[in-house]
């Protein structure tokens, strides 16, 4: 049992436990913090897989920007402790059954039907990090330049849309 394997198993346990914490915590702030933990463990997975740029983007974009936005909205709305609403009686068991079926299907497809996963192991960070970053940057700004620019337009549209959506009309109270 080598070091990578131990690291993988520990990270997988933390990732699944934090996802479970997100599902069962009643306080929305705790749920958000569990999700930050989950994003951080997935970022370490990316590092093991030899994708340092994606790992750091994960930490800055997801665990940084997006979750700060979430926490900001939670505190703005005072939604950290919502009153428990009446759940449909069959909702929870049915949801669990549906999810179990989904998981079984995914497992069946991945491990039985498709043989693509059979012999593949990941080569890991064999190339050095600087070289990997250089290749990624060159691909992003040569081959994928148009999608990159379209993404910036998308972000601009989202920004303008959010400003227009949350702008109060004149004379509207509160």
């Amino acid at each position: 049992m080598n070091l990578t394997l131990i690291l993988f198993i520990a990270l997988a346990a933390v990732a699944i436990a934090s996802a479970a914490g997100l599902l069962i915590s009643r306080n929305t702030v705790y749920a958000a913090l569990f999700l930050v933990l989950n994003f951080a463990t997935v970022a370490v997975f990316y590092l093991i897989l030899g994708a340092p740029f994606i790992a750091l983007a994960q930490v800055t974009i997801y665990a940084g920007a997006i979750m700060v936005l979430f926490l900001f909205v939670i505190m703005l709305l005072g939604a950290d402790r919502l009153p428990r609403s009446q759940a449909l009686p069959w909702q929870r068991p049915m949801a669990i059954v549906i999810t179990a079926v989904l998981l079984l299907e995914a497992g069946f497809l991945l491990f039985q039907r498709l043989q693509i996963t059979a012999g593949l192991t990941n080569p890991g960070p064999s190339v050095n990090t600087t070289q990997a970053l250089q290749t990624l940057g060159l691909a992003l700004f040569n081959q994928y330049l148009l999608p990159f620019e379209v993404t910036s337009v998308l972000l601009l549209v989202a920004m303008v849309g959010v400003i227009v959506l949350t702008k109060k009309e004149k004379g509207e109270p509160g």
Partner: protein
Amino acid sequence: MPNTIPLSWYLGISAVLFAMGALGVLIRRNPLIIFMSVELMLNAANLAFVAFASSFGVLTGQIFVFFVMTVSAAEVAVGLALIIIIFRNKHSIDVDLMNSLKG
């Protein structure tokens, strides 16, 4: 450090995280937590992308993950703005109250 973890393990983790995100969307009634579960599912898909990219030795998967991240950032901004508007109109964000379009 030799790396001997098979690709299928990463895909298994990804599938489990995706299923937990789907479960969160189905059982929780707080729209903020439903949103976080959607983020969890996107993240699981990203993990599968990076695992495949690393396994096949191509960069396309990583670049796609980068685009997924930007799109999800835009989606979160718009979605949270919508939640704020709903809260302003109904003074609650329970998903059961969001039935104005129901005929």
